[in-house]
Structure formats: C-alpha cells, structure tokens
C-alpha cells in the first residue's frame, strides 16, 4: 500500500466526521482508506492541466426565488421527529462550559 494512513490521521478525520471508531474499526479504516487512496491515485496518471473542475454537468444558472413569505408556523411538525424537545425548542447537551 503506497498510502499509509497514520493513527493521527484517522483520529483527526474521526473528529471532522464526528465518528467514534473502536480500535478494530480504526485499523480497518486505515486499511480501507489506504487502499482506496492507492486506487484514487490512479487519477494522477491523467493530464488535467487547463481543465476546469466541473461541479455541475449542465450550465444551469441564476435559479432564484422571489422574496415573498409563503411558510407559516409549522413548529409542531418540525419538532415532531426530534429526540428531545423543551419549550418549543430542540434540546441538546449544554453547548457552553
């Protein structure tokens, strides 16, 4: 494997992705990611100099909404699926220490 994924990298990506992996999962993730990156490195063979990165396949642009209020109060529906609710708000663990 040309791409060696360090423990630190897996730890760091876990923080970015908000995933907590077990030791076994970490080892597996290192191996999988290394293999995938080796494979992805194949793209390096391609000369893409001067090629514009293509986000959208079609030249669709300027899709706008008019500034008109359409939505009313739909709080009950919005909160219906929330795991924890208090006073019409989503309840989460304390965000400040």
């Amino acid at each position: 494997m040309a791409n060696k994924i360090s423990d630190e990298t897996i730890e760091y990506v876990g923080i970015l992705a908000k995933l907590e992996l077990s030791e076994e999962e970490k080892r597996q993730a290192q191996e999988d990611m290394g293999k995938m990156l080796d494979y992805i490195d194949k793209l390096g063979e391609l000369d893409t100099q001067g090629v514009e990165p293509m986000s959208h396949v079609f030249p669709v642009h300027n899709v706008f909404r008019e500034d008109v209020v359409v939505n009313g109060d739909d709080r009950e529906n919005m909160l219906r699926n929330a795991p924890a609710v208090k006073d019409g708000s989503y309840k989460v663990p304390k965000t400040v220490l």
Partner: protein
Amino acid sequence: MAKQYETVIGLEVHVELATKTKIFCSCSTAFGGAPNTHTCPVCTGMPGSLPVLNKQVVEYAMAVGLATNCKIHQYSKFDRKNYFYPDNPQNYQISQLYLPICYEGGVEIDTPAGKKVIGIHEIHMEEDAGKLIHDEWEDCSLVDYNRSGVPLIEIVSEPDMRNADEVIAYLDKLRLIIQYLGASDCKLQEGSMRADVNLSVREVGAEKFGTRTEMKNLNSFKAVARAIEGERARQIELLEEGKQVIQETRRWDDNKEYSYAMRSKEDAQDYRYFPDPDLVPIIISDEWIQAVRDRQPELRTEKLERYKKEFDIPDYDARIITGSKKLADLFEETTAICKKPKKVANWILGETLRLLKEKDMEPEELRFSAENLAKLINLTDAGTINGSVAKEVFEVLFGEDIDPEQYVEEKGLKTVNDEGALRTVIKDVLANNPQSVSDYKGGKAKALGFLVGQTMKAMKGKADPGSVNRILKELLDEA
C-alpha cells in the same frame, strides 16, 4: 527604551439583510416570534430538503458592493462550510469561499491625520445560524431555528486599521452606507450588524504582520473599542514576556474586559469547503449591475450637498441630519409636508436630539411621524400655540406620536388672541405690581420681563408673547 508597538486590525462585519424571507427558503425573517415558529424543512435541515436562493439577497449584496466601490464577480458560487454545532441544522453553513459576489473595494474614513481608505477584501453572502438558549435549570441548551437561514453578508476588510478610532469610523461608515441603501437596519445591539476583530501587533517599523487572533461577541461600538484595547495589551504582554501569540478565535467578555480562547479539541477548524452541489452558479450581467447601480438611492455625501443647496441648511446642521438615515428621512418627509426646511432642521437638531440624549436612544428608535411633526410646526408658525407650549406638546409627541392639532384642542392649549381680554388681564397685572411699574419707568429693563411672566402666568401660558410685549409696553408708556 521600551519597544513601540503598532496594532494591525482587520474586520469581518456580518450584516443581516432586510429581506422579508430567509436566504434559501420562504420563511419569514421577522424578529420576535416564539421559538421555531419561522421554520420549515429547509431551514431545519430536514433530510431531502433543498435550498433555493432569494434573489433579493443577491441584489442587496451587489448594492452594498457597488456602494463600497467593490468589483462584482460576474460568475459567483456558493460553497459549504462544514462544521458540527447545533445552531447549524445541516452541520454545514452555505457560504461563499472561492468566488464571493464582491471583491476589491474600499471606503474612505476621516482620521485626525486626514482621509484614509480602508480596503475591502471581499463581500460574500451566507446564511445565519439559529439561536442557542442555555437552560440553567436542566443544564442543557435549547435550539431555536427562527434565525437559521436569515441572509447575511460578510464584509471582510483588509488589515488597514491601526486603532479603535479607525475601526469605529469604518463601522460607522459601513453602517451609514448600508442603512442608506435600505439593505439592513444595522443594529449592533440586536445583532443585525456584528463585527469580528482580527488583531495583531508588531514593532513599529516591522514589515511582517504579527500573529493575529480573531475576537467574536462584540455587540456595541464601545465593546469593540474596549476589546481592541484589551487584546492589544494582552498580545504586547505576551511578546514582552518572550511568548508567542497563538492564532486562534477568542470570545470577548465585555463585563470582565478580557478575551478567552474558544478552541477545543473538537473544533479542528478545518471546514472542508466545497461548492454546494444543490445550488447553481450566479451569473451577473453588465445590465444587471447597471440596473442595481441605477436603483441606488442617494447616499450620504450627495444628500449632504443637496441639503445645503436645496434647503440652504448650514454645513454643520446638514452633517448631523445626514449622519443618520432615520433623521434624514424624518427631515425630508416633514419638509415635504410643511415646506419649512429650516424650522424642521431646528426641531431635529434641538428638541429631538436633546430628548434622544436624555433617554439614551438611537435615532433609529424614533417612533413619531413626520406628519405630526409637520402639524406641530404649522401650529407654532400660525401662532396657534406659542413656543413653550410647542415644546411641551413635542415631548408628548416624542413619546406617544399624538396628533398635535387634536391634542392642543383637547387640552385647551391654544394661544388666546382676544386682544380685549389680554388688555384687561395686563391692566390687572400692572395694577397689582406698582413696584415693577415704577422700576420699569426708572429704567430697569428687567422689570418688563417680570411683568411678561406675570401676564403669561395669568394667561396660563396661552398668550402670544409678541402681543403681550407690545400691549405691555403700550400701557406702561401710557401709565
């Protein structure tokens, strides 16, 4: 000799735009609703929902860009800024990193050393986050997404400011421009204008910038000034102790007058920006730019010149009035009704400013109508009420926006114009104050003032002072 330090400051100013709806959905942006009553699948990050851009946001952003001498990226895109926090329902914020709508502009400010241009690096559009309320009882936080998706522009300056005064002047200038454009009400206290301060220090003469910190949570001009002083001192102290300034985000605590690092292991500050695949590019034609330019309302400088020319208002007065969009609007609307620009200016510069100061209010908080101010001016001008009554009526008008005509009628405040009745009263006053009469005759001019006062008192303030003076002198000369 102790080392001399220079402060280098750049600002990131967030301004909430005055649109009716949010940036990517048709929910209302109105303030003050109960939590989560202005939300929908889009602004609560429901699975499967998709954003659609509010055109007015683009127009306001362009208008601010043009008014601050920016260039417009005629091909602009939205990117996702990825980070986890509960006020951000999708756990990414839709913003612009790679191709912001406006770039390379600047505004001129006045400094003691003369005029100075503060460069604007870019202006980009983005969505605001929701609000977190900390619940002390249950030791948890509550999320309200009413503000989630409210449109913002972020105005990023160059590191061109060197002290708090320049920062305040720059903020003031931006605020005025944006208020004149009608793009936002720019209230720092309410959070519709927010400034993050990027600050570093370096030895005077050094070419390289020092390491900067970013300070957040500054919600008044005074807090901005204090935070700059506090952070400057903190950084200099570190350097003097031979320590390093760490590049980080800090939260200013205005009560403790100190900033605190906001970093934690869980905030990697690696936002993994990439173009948002759910939104398409914005292409801005020359015609569109011209149309926004053509629609641009008169800004402060033009207004100032026009007031001096059109209304013959002194420069100083015109500056104060145009120094607030609200005052300028009040001036123009009132003048349009009563056609007495100088009198209107006097009311604004005099009583209005006096009461604002007394009540510690901003001009934006004024609630009375131009129509009622015009009525009051007309009543005074016609002699229906006298000056001191007018001031009393104005105090009521200032607080409750009453109709002065109706008020004067109801309270019986009209000046008495019945000359016969006035003569009778004055005769009585003279008869009751022989000492003052002889003082006057003896050359004491002050005595006349006393007699006027006595007459007004007898008239319960409702006499025309001119008539009182004239009749008094006439009768004294006869006596």
